């Protein structure tokens, strides 16, 4: 018992005496009652009429109560806690002396208990108002709007003052409210709105507070529309109604509002998180597309260079391979010119509206717009990837903050009970399924808690270890085999291309030649499709107990596969193709890599569709018709998200080589959304296992940031250092950085005052020292933050201890109070407890 005194609120009188949430007075004068009672006790006037009445009632009640006591859940609780003995001596003695009193409280005590501030805060308007009064106070103090002195003196001890030791009644509440209004008036507008919004009061009360707070300002505003004619009023009204209906129409256009609601109504937050992730990726790509489209594709498309001769005709296969007809268009790096685009300043027609930058015509420059393509190319890519990086890191850190709290205690059961209901789920069968799931989970958790780890024998552990070892061996071996296969396949392709070059292209069907380019993407996508199935098989063999470990292991294996595949491919492109592009007859290896990435992206999409068709649709039909099972397949969120991340990595890798790749990715994601949506609605059922949405989302954003984006940008940086010399916007430059340098130099030449800029540029961009300084500062900041978090953790521990002590104190005081009360009531009992106490 002791540490767990259960206040039995099932008490009949208790229920009768309970106040409704709106009812204030009864709650708030309770402390005065406490005080009054104490003074009565102190007065030692034994047989007051009041006291007698009380006694009579008490006795009646005890009799009635016995029944409830025996059957109520509180009793079992007490017994259980009684076994958990950590009793203090004093209380122990007391229970022995008078087991009847033990933890049963008289109605007066119960009333006090129920009106204690910690219990009223949840339902009491006055308490809420005073809580928010304190907050506004703090806010004002922080914002330094010089509060009045009387406010200061009152807010010295917010907690006690807030809940009215000062015998509050309706009057006190009014004054509290006035003070709150006064504080609200003194806040800035945005703070006031924020405060009002966050108050858990109903709208009418809030609007009253608001109008009171706005009272002053309102009075100064005179009514300005007395002479407004009836007609005008109607017109304004009509226009407003139209505007509102337009607004609600816009709301319905909100991207995927309805389908997302349908998915969440049926599958809950887990599956929804996949689609939200898809939506996030879509926004990233739209951003990238807008930037590259506006600053690179559009200017270049408006000023096409002289078309090269012998452009192949459109055959249709280009849509898959991206080569042929497409190869010399704005799609690829090689098409972009390396000079300054100008709007024509000659009058001889718009064909040759492009002039070389070195053929300088100063009059032209001064009069017309000019566009430095290499610079634009460099800065667009640089700035957009920098912004993407910042957004990613920001959302990653925010998500970390939300999903991993500093806390060491884990209250699984409480969290499960309080937080597991998904209010978004509205479909009846899904609600039922969710109930079942929660029930099973609760039962499992309970079993786990009560058994607390059955010790495995050594033999079993060895067996488990062997199974895990075997599973990992299978996974690693298959990954290695696949990587080797890709390596040799790409090598073979490379040599094939060399052969073609030696033999001449004439004796080979160009279509076949082009189609053979698809072999590598098909192989890679096939591996990406099949190996996860093998990994799932391995995981099934291992039979993990905890679902989260299972998910993490599966993510780890898939990640291993994807990273190594991309690693080999990057080696193929940057190490083989880029190192010696002449050997396979390439004028521009960047365009070739761009085409390859286009193909990979497309193949990935096609295989995802196939997977949806075969893995979900046909499998459902098969299991329904042939196996006669009622279960539908479960949507594998983790795997699908990883596929999305893989596709996004390809898009980021390719944006330098194929500036329109984000557009392709946008199309792909849009289609994927609808395909996956209909597949999920048709073929899948709500997942049985619990899915920790926010933690998984954090993991996925981290993956998106760390291997995906950073890997892609490292590869891209590598190319920035060594652009090819015969095509693209940087063909005359040794590194892409020089585009910026050259521009700065020109600026300096034109305007000597800007030499500071040039120097700053050369220091910041070219000197690695600043990079190191930046990274160093970053690390130091991280270190400090981790130290602060560590400190906070210690403080949390201390505070928790203190709260427990306070709880003990409260219990001690109440027990004392009760004892004194009892002593007064029955002299016999008084004797007994005095004996035991002293």
């Amino acid at each position: 018992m002791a540490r767990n005194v259960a206040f039995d609120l099932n008490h009949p009188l208790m229920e009768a005496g309970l106040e409704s949430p709106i009812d204030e007075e009864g709650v708030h004068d309770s402390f005065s009652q406490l005080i009054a009672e104490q003074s009565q006790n102190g007065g030692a006037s034994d047989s007051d009429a009041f006291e007698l009445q009380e006694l009579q009632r008490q006795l009646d009640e005890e009799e009635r109560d016995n029944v409830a006591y025996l059957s109520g859940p509180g009793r079992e609780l007490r017994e259980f806690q009684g076994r958990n003995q950590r009793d203090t001596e004093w209380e122990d003695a007391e229970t022995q002396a008078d087991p009847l009193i033990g933890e049963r409280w008289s109605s007066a005590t119960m009333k006090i208990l129920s009106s204690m501030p910690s219990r009223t805060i949840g339902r009491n308007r006055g308490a809420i108002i005073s809580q928010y009064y304190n907050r506004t106070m703090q806010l004002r103090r922080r914002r330094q709007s010089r509060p009045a002195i009387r406010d200061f003196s009152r807010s010295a001890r917010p907690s006690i003052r807030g809940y009215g030791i000062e015998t509050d009644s309706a009057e006190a509440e009014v004054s509290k409210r006035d003070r709150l209004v006064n504080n609200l008036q003194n806040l800035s507008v945005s703070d006031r709105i924020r405060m009002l919004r966050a108050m858990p009061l109903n709208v009418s009360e809030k609007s009253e507070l608001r109008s009171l707070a706005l009272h002053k300002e309102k009075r100064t505003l005179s009514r300005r529309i007395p002479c407004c004619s009836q007609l005008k009023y109607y017109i304004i009204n009509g226009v407003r109604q139209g505007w509102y209906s337009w607004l609600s129409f816009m709301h319905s256009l909100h991207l995927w509002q309805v389908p997302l609601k349908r998915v969440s109504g049926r599958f809950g937050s887990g599956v929804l998180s996949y689609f939200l992730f898809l939506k996030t990726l879509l926004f990233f790509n739209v951003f990238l597309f807008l930037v590259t489209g506006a600053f690179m594709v559009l200017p270049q498309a408006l000023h096409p260079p002289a078309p090269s001769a012998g452009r192949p005709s459109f055959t249709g296969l280009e849509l898959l391979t991206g080569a042929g007809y497409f190869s010399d268009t704005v799609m690829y790096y090689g098409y972009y010119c390396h000079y300054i685009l100008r709007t024509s300043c000659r009058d001889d027609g718009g064909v040759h509206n492009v002039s070389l930058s070195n053929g300088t015509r100063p009059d032209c420059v001064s009069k017309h717009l000019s566009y430095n393509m290499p610079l634009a190319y460099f800065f667009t890519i640089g700035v957009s990837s920098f912004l993407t990086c910042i957004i990613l890191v920001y959302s990653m850190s925010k998500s970390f903050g939300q999903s991993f709290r500093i806390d060491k205690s884990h209250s699984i059961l409480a969290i499960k009970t309080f937080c597991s209901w998904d209010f978004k789920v509205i479909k009846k069968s899904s609600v039922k399924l969710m109930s079942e799931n929660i029930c099973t989970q609760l039962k499992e958790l309970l079993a786990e808690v009560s058994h607390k780890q059955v010790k495995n024998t050594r033999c079993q552990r060895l067996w488990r270890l062997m199974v895990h070892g075997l599973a990992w061996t299978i996974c690693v071996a298959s990954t290695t085999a696949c990587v080797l296969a890709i390596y040799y396949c790409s090598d073979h392709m490379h040599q094939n291309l060399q052969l073609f070059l030696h033999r001449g292209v004439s004796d080979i069907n160009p279509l076949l030649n082009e189609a053979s380019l698809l072999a590598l993407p098909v192989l890679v996508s096939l591996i990406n499709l099949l190996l996860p199935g093998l990994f799932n098989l391995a995981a099934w063999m291992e039979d993990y107990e905890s679902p989260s470990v299972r998910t993490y292991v599966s993510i780890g294996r898939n990640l291993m596969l994807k990273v190594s595949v991309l690693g080999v491919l990057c080696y193929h492109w940057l190490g083989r193709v880029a190192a010696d592009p002449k050997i396979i007859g390439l004028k521009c290896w960047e365009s070739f890599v761009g085409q390859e990435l286009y193909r990979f992206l497309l193949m990935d999409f096609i295989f995802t569709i196939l997977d949806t068709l075969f893995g979900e649709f046909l499998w459902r039909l098969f299991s329904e018709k042939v196996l006669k099972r009622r279960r539908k397949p479960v949507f594998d969120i983790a795997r699908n998200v990883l596929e999305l991340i893989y596709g996004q990595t390809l898009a980021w890798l390719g944006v330098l080589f194929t500036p329109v790749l984000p557009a392709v990715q946008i199309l792909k994601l849009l289609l994927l959304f609808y395909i996956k949506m209909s597949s999920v609605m048709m073929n899948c059922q709500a997942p049985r296992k619990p899915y920790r949405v926010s933690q998984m989302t954090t993991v996925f954003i981290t993956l998106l940031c760390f291997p995906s984006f950073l890997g892609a940008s490292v590869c891209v940086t590598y190319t920035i250092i060594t652009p090819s010399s015969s095509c693209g916007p940087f063909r005359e430059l040794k590194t892409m950085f020089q585009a910026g340098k050259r521009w700065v130099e020109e600026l300096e030449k034109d305007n000597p005052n800007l030499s500071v800029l040039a120097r700053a540029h050369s220091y910041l961009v070219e000197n690695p020292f600043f990079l190191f300084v930046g990274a160093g500062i970053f690390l130091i900041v991280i270190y400090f933050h981790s130290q602060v978090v560590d400190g906070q953790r210690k403080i949390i521990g201390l505070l928790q201890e203190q709260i427990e002590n306070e709880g003990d104190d409260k219990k001690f005081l109440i027990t004392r109070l009760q004892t004194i009360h009892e002593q007064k009531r029955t002299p016999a009992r008084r004797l007994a407890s005095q004996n035991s106490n002293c």
Partner: protein
Amino acid sequence: MGTTASQLGKDMLSEYQELTFLTKQEILLAHKRFTELLTKDEKDLPNTRVPMERILTLPELKSNPFRKRICNVFSTSEYKDGGLTFEDFLDLLSAFSDSATLEIKSHYAFRIFDFDDDGTLDCRDLEKLVNCLTGETDDTRLTPEEMRQLINNILEESDIDKDGTVNLSEFQHVISRSPDFVSSFKIVL
């Protein structure tokens, strides 16, 4: 500017926007959905209170096991019948909206789970809560033994001051450790 139930004034709209977590569009949608619940003659009256039975026909609430509690918590009716006015309805949607803070969500969650309205979650409240979660049918229900054990464990985990009940701050403490709560405590119209 008369605000009958079928029309929403501009001042009211901006005021509601200021006082709740809803956007203008969401308020308009809510208004549309709410007016659909009204009968013909009710549409002309200001501040009509829609009885709970009719509110519960909304598909968003229809199969929610906590539907009656939700109505009761957000109702300002004097008769405690769970009827909602439009403002109450906005309150409901605001608490369940995307942008509502964790604090306000947990406050209302606490009030929803507090079945007897006494300001704390005691054993009985917890029992009712668990029954709502697991459904009322016999095959999904926990046995009394399991229920007892579960409630003991919940109290042991969350009742910091060890007074046998979970009060609002203890509840919020538990909630703050579950990042998924904000995303699951949502109702979208």
